[in-house]
């Protein structure tokens, strides 16, 4: 314990207290002049506590308990935070810190309802803390519901298309919650309780059919939040149209809660060995194979949907869905390398995706649009935002020297080493699509001809550029020295019960080909330095000209000629995959929408008819929790 706490509070208690206080305070004072900086301060404190917890865990503290307790149905609910939860908690508080920083200055002043933005952000952090530190299945369920509703509250604040998407999201989330609820009932029926240990103990006695049911219910229920492929349709619009830093927060961590719960339920509770035993008869296909293929499809399909987008935010959020596939796939490889790769990707993704979303919102802040067809040439006007976006897209595309490359490399490598060629090809193909679409993103916003109406705009204020530059910087540093991030990942990996991956500061050493990013990045930077030397020493000095001094077949350009290629950026590709996109994706979207509505009603009906008492009970528990939540502390 790095510092003493009053009243016997554990650090988890402190964190919960900070989060709860932040929720209340920011809702009250979010619009005040310094409200934004208060938010930054509070989230900074939460981040500091989280880091302190990490030091504790690294010192071998095991799990950090909370004083918060509840007794329901004779079951005592407890909240404790282990390494896995802490890993995700670090991302949560980190994301909240950078988001609130971004909102603290000019952004907060120009927003209509900064109070709500700050309040919902803090509320989200609070509910996530509850979810991540859940000590049993019921706690998990409660946390899950809270997180869903908090995210919903965040999404509807802007109104307009985001609200539409948020309702759709709730529909999916309800369906997921129903599945989860059913899973809990199955476990309760078999184990007689909600505790994790009770469930683990009951596993060997469960029939294959029951295990399959559990697997399907957990994967389906949590997969909704991760937007795994057939349930992916809600996420992009819901996250895109949420304003500013809230969108960045949602993108970076919200969907990762689904991953956390999946890891918890499938890896920690059921375990890889049990899962590996689950095979479809006569085929030898394991249950994880099914999920891995779902992950692979999630990698590829949303990536190519992202390629078709014309809104910068939609493009990025679709990529967010695709990147989720990489994480899940890495974890499902089930080797230390793969799991470490998957978890590292969670961390890396949070850094670069936040930088990207924040940069895009900085552009929106200045120009008022995120339409990729209406921007262009902003590099001269907003160079810092450009740098942040550039570093972000290098990470997202998974190219050296950014951190995205390291985690993707580990995932590819794990797949190749375990001889899963088709999955690794899918991973590579997803990356190729990413490269195409991120270039479109940066080209259409920052390169090409500057539009005349953007001629006078200024760089985004420091309060906005600094957070994204710091995030991009973290991305670069953890790309240069991935060992830093891998040590964080170790905590989670240890808590998952997976063997640790031996690593050093620069990467990993493997018999089948190693990676040392210190060398890779060092040489790359050095070589670019040599390139600069060649550029500046050889040849006469450069003369910078303007954009109308340009080749136009001998014609004269003037300001009123639109001489900028941005709309339909990949026409050839669109012609090849466009029919498929229009035919398949759009139809699937429609069909799934209908299906979700029908099945949502159906589940409702089934549960109300069959388990009305239990359902009422759960609702009562939730109500109780609300009533006695605050009183629970310290008891």
């Amino acid at each position: 314990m790095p510092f003493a706490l009053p009243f016997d509070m554990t650090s988890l208690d402190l964190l919960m207290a900070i989060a709860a206080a932040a929720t209340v305070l920011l809702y009250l004072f979010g619009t005040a002049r310094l409200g934004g900086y208060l938010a930054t301060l509070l989230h900074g404190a939460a981040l500091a506590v989280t880091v302190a917890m990490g030091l504790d865990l690294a010192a071998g503290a095991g799990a950090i308990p909370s004083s918060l307790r509840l007794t329901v149905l004779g079951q005592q609910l407890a909240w404790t935070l282990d390494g896995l939860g802490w890993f995700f908690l670090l991302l949560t508080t980190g994301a909240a810190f950078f988001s609130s920083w971004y909102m603290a200055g000019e952004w907060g002043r120009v927003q209509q309802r900064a109070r709500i933005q700050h309040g919902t952000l803090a509320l989200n952090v609070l509910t996530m803390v509850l979810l991540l530190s859940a000590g049993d299945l019921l706690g998990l369920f409660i946390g899950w519901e809270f997180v869903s509703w908090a995210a919903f509250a965040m999404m509807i604040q802007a109104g307009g298309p985001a609200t539409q998407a948020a309702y759709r999201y709730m529909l999916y989330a309800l369906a997921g919650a129903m599945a989860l609820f059913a899973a809990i009932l199955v476990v309760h029926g078999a184990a007689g309780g909600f505790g994790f240990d009770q469930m683990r103990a009951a596993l060997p006695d469960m029939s294959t059919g029951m295990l399959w049911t559990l697997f399907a219910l957990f994967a389906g229920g949590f997969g909704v939040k991760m937007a795994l492929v057939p349930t992916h349709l809600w996420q992009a619009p819901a996250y895109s149209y949420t304003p500013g830093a809230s969108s960045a927060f949602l993108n970076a961590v919200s969907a990762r809660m689904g991953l956390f719960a999946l890891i918890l339920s499938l890896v920690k509770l059921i375990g890889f060995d049990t899962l590996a035993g689950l095979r479809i008869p006569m085929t030898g296909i394991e249950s994880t194979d099914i999920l891995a293929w779902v992950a692979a499809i999630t990698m590829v399909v949303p990536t190519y949907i992202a390629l078709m987008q014309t809104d910068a935010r939609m493009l990025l959020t679709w990529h967010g869905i695709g990147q989720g596939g990489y994480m899940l796939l890495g974890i499902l490889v089930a080797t230390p390398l793969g799991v470490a790769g998957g978890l590292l990707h969670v961390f890396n993704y949070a850094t670069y995706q936040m930088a990207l979303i924040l940069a895009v919102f900085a552009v929106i802040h200045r120009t008022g649009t995120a339409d990729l067809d209406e921007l262009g040439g902003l590099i001269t006007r907003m160079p810092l935002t450009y740098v942040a976006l550039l570093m972000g897209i290098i990470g997202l595309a998974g190219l050296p020297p950014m951190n995205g490359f390291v985690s993707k490399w580990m995932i590819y490598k794990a797949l190749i080493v375990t001889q899963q060629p088709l999955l690794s090809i899918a991973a590579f193909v997803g990356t190729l699509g990413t490269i195409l679409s991120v270039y479109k993103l940066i080209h259409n916003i920052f390169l090409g001809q500057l539009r005349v109406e953007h001629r006078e705009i200024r760089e985004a204020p420091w309060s906005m550029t600094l957070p994204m530059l710091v995030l991009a910087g973290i991305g670069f540093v953890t790309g240069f020295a991935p060992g830093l991030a891998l040590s964080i990942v170790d905590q989670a990996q240890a808590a998952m019960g997976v063997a640790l991956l031996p690593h050093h500061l620069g990467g990993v050493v493997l018999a089948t080909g190693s990676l040392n990013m210190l060398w890779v990045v060092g040489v790359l930077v050095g070589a670019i330095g040599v390139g600069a030397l060649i550029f500046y020493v050889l040849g006469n000095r450069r003369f910078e000209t303007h954009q109308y001094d340009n080749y136009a077949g001998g014609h004269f350009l003037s300001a009123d000629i639109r001489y900028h290629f941005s709309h339909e950026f990949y026409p050839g590709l669109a012609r090849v995959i466009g029919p498929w996109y229009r035919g398949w994706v759009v139809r699937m979207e429609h069909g799934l929408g209908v299906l979700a509505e029908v099945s949502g009603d159906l589940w409702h009906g089934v549960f109300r008819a069959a388990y009305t008492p239990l359902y009422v009970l759960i609702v009562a528990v939730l109500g109780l929790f609300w009533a006695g939540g605050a009183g629970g502390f310290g008891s």
Partner: protein
Amino acid sequence: MRPQNYRPVAHPPSHEYELYFGPNHPGIEGNYAIRVRLKGDVIQEAIADGGYLHRGFEKIMESRLWIQNVALVPRICVPDPVPMEDSYARSVEALGGLEVPERAQWIRVLMLEVSRICAHLFTFGGNAATIGLYTNMFWGVSMRDLFLDIFEEITGARIYHMYITPGGVRRDLPPGILDKLSAVIDELERRAPEFDDLFFDSTVVMNRAAGCGTMTQEQALSWGVTGPNLRACGLPFDLRRDDPYLVYPELDFDIPTETAGDALARMRVRKAEVQQSIRILRQVIARLPSVKGPIRCPLPNPLAWNVPAGEAYARAESSKGELGFFVVSNGGDKPWRVHVRGPSQMHAVQVLENLLTGARIEDIAQIMFSLDACPPEVDR
């Protein structure tokens, strides 16, 4: 010009942008420009922009003697100059009532057909180069050079011969030239399969040229398309047969047609035409030695030659289509009015604009070269 001097104007809210094909662009035949408005890579609107090669021929011909203009006319269409000389000469002959001696007519046919082969070889090369098949261009152009040598030996010049004058030709054929010509023709026939392999049998060419710039026969007729481009739509219209001039009625040749009306069909028609020209040349080579006589009818003093008043329209089938010279004389020593009707005036402007609309960036050069549009003919 200082960059800050650019006056700001808001861009229109549109997803369309502009590209400039030419005049300084390798996808353009000669010095010509097409401005295209695009969305993605699909052309929404194409506007032909000519005049880069405008020399005011029709004006300066009015200020020169009838005979002086012989030097000017071949320069109207650079790749295929001989039909220009011939048509001008025939229009003046019609005005002045001159009868061209038979030998001169045969020599003119020889020149015309060699020029047609040259022009088609050049078009092959250009068309192949637009889709990156430079080998074909290199071979085609060097093959054409052999024919230019024949020209040089006959007339003293490779490109602008100024050989066909009103009333006949400037001088007789040099001895042995017919043997050399048939050797060159044999060489061309020997090489022809190579061009087939590279171009007409290539899957890539098929893939790109088939269906590219397609027009129906009705469209072609209403747009005023002539020459190989019209024949590629299935109409066997050839002025050598339909409105015969010189000694073409005595010659035996076919009029090749295709029905598809696309770039590939147009190139196939040209290839077949080269074969027909070879056939004609063989007949001419066989016949010429037996045609004796003068090569020019007696002319008055060309420096003081007042051509009788009147008007004449002489047309010829050039390698690109119908070429017409409308010449008006008021009885003076200079033409009163010369109007040149080049086939490309249709092909390079209205037809091109129509065909390009809805096409893609990659088709622009291909369509222009397959129409064999000749900008100097448009600009004059």
